[in-house]
């Protein structure tokens, strides 16, 4: 028995020793997004993009602070708000100081609140929230806070760019707005109404929200849209709701453009295939097509390591490199206040995407080039290994750089 205890304590001690010696020198980022359940595809692709970006763009280039490696720790939130907060706590307890999350603005809202409170109460263990995908405008307006940084263009910025394109299309006289009945769908509809009225004389012939994930057959919606005489459709739909809407429109004889936020990757591009050609127009940051040689090599590497993944969210390469740069500028991986101040207002040249990104000081919204692209098979980098992808045809440089914000940031 005594011997057993000795062995056990030895094993335990050596385990502790090894784990601390192996991991102590890495800078960890907790990746908190759905890795199981119906939304797992999006989460898994995002994780692969984070891991590969950290490996390729930071660690292989010598790490941070003169040799420290960075590491992505995956935590599954099952697309659930409560579970997400538990995982944030898990990350904090493990000593992780960077939280990356993106899927669902609802969850991002919950995390930003928690991070804000936590940092106030634990000035010695502060964390930074890297929001790489949640686009609810409120996060950088009314709900903005010092520790939250958004790397994607928010829903308003994207709509600003979409409506720029629409304003240039002389054939569009009547517009139909359709979206899922929740905060994001409403935000898209409100932004569309606002910008269309500002920039064009297009008549909005329909503005409706349908129950999210409950519509079995979109045919009647498509019939209604056609009967309304609309030339074009704007939608914030994602997942099966997006595919079914698009397919029903095409099948029912609608031949106008559909402007969308989330009509690519995670199986959507593959499922649309030929059907989506000439119909889908997507707005987003990160120009993949036409591409440059550096990006080609990067994408090849990503595909070799994670065959099912895509460069669906090029902004992740911004986020990773900007965090590394901020750590180097702050000269510490634990002085979160200094890192946050380094991130704030940072101007960053991403060689890979050949773009500039500015983390706007006033509200921590990344300002970057935003593009509108079309679904086509004439691409260098495809999605879902389908031969189809998104080719950008319109770019707005540093979109919405001077857009107003209601953010009143309190700085520590």
């Amino acid at each position: 028995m005594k011997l057993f205890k000795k062995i056990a304590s030895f094993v335990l001690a050596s385990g502790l020793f090894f784990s601390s010696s192996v991991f102590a020198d890495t800078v960890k980022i907790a990746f908190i997004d759905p890795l199981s359940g119906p939304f797992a595809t999006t989460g898994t692709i995002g994780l692969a993009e984070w891991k590969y970006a950290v490996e390729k763009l930071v660690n292989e280039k010598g790490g941070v602070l003169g040799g420290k490696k960075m590491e992505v720790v995956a935590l599954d939130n099952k697309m659930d708000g409560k579970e997400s907060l538990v995982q944030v706590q898990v990350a904090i307890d493990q000593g992780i100081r960077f939280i990356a999350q993106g899927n669902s603005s609802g969850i991002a809202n919950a995390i930003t609140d928690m991070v804000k409170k936590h940092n106030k109460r634990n000035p010695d263990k502060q964390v930074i929230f890297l929001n790489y995908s949640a686009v609810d405008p409120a996060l950088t307006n009314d709900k903005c806070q010092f520790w939250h940084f958004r790397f994607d263009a928010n829903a308003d910025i994207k709509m600003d760019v979409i409506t720029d394109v629409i304003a240039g299309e002389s054939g569009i006289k009547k517009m139909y707005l359709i979206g899922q009945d929740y905060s994001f769908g409403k935000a898209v509809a409100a932004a569309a109404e606002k910008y269309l009225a500002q920039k064009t004389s297009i008549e909005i012939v329909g503005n409706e929200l349908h129950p999210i994930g409950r519509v079995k057959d979109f045919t009647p919606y498509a019939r209604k849209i056609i009967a309304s005489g609309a030339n074009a459709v704007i939608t914030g739909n994602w997942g099966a709701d997006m595919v079914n809407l698009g397919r029903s429109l095409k099948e029912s004889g609608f031949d106008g453009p559909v402007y969308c936020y989330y009509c690519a990757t995670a199986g959507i591009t593959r499922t649309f295939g030929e059907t989506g050609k000439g119909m889908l127009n997507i707005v987003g940051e990160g120009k993949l097509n036409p591409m440059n040689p550096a990006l080609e090599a990067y994408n090849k590497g990503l595909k070799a390591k994670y065959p099912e993944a895509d460069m669906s969210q090029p902004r992740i390469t911004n986020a990773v490199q900007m965090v590394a740069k901020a750590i180097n500028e702050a000269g510490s991986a634990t002085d979160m206040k200094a890192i946050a101040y380094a991130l704030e207002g940072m101007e960053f040249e991403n060689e890979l995407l050949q773009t500039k990104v500015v983390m706007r000081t006033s509200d921590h919204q990344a300002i970057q080039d935003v593009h509108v692209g079309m679904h086509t098979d004439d691409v260098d980098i495809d999605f879902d290994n389908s031969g189809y992808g998104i080719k950008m045809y319109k770019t707005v440089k540093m979109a919405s750089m001077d857009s107003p914000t209601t953010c009143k940031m309190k700085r520590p």
Partner: protein
Amino acid sequence: MDLFIINVIDGLIYGLLLFMLSSGLTLIFSMMGVLNLSHAAFYMLGAYLAYQISVYTGFWVGLIVAPLLVTILGAAVERYGLRRVHQYGHVPELIFTFGLFFVIEELVQYIWGRSMVNYNSPESLDFIAFNLAGGSIPAYKVFMLLVSVGIFLALYYVLARTRVGMIIQAALSYPKTVEALGHNVPLVFMGVFGVGTGLAGLAGVIAGPSLTTFPGMAFLLGSIVFVCVVVGGLGSLFGAFVASLLIGWLQTFAASYNIGAADILIAFGYEYPKDVYYHPWRDLWTLTLPQIGPILPYILLILVLVFRPNGLFGKRET
């Protein structure tokens, strides 16, 4: 008026698809007294199997082979699963099928992944059958319609006009007597369960390209099928037919017309609030028919259960 006609056609196609699912379910119920909660999972399985087969051999082989595979699987589930559970009564049977639903759903996601798969209608049907009111009816939808009608006629013929149908109908009400007459009732049960799930599989095969083959498809259609069966009357094939069409049209028309609560309120003399987005009754004022469309079948379900507990055409006390 043109939009009305086109909605009638769309609703009919959707309703007949529902019938293909509910017919199997109601047959199984009337025969074995067990509500097969895993029914929609077989529908999903049919779609995914057909997708896999279509990758290698094209759509048409999948159309024939996938439902057969589902039929065999369904029969095997009855023979080696349900039949053993049967002796413990109805509740364990119900729980068995309930568990089976999740097992199949997870298995499908394990094999084919969690994103949607690229299952499409055959190229030979990729044309527009006819145009109506600026909208078009694709040939594939017409094909769906024909298959569903064909299945309905075939089922009716088998049950009403053949010897097999006679035995099935007799076994429905007097299984002991039928057994005493020398018929193999357990075999009949197995056959009915197999064919019932096979019909669900066929529904999946033809619905997959149209309604998208994705992991949530079983869950999305599963609950509505039970509504069809209960509204029609548990165990009544004709009831399931009528209820499926009714619900098909109900959902199609509800989604087609943007009648809002505001129209009704104004008709009753209330005034539309100036700034509706900040009005305390905002949710009521902005409510429209398409938004409540998906719950209409469930309201119908409750009404039917209250006023006609046996369903529209049901005879059996449940």
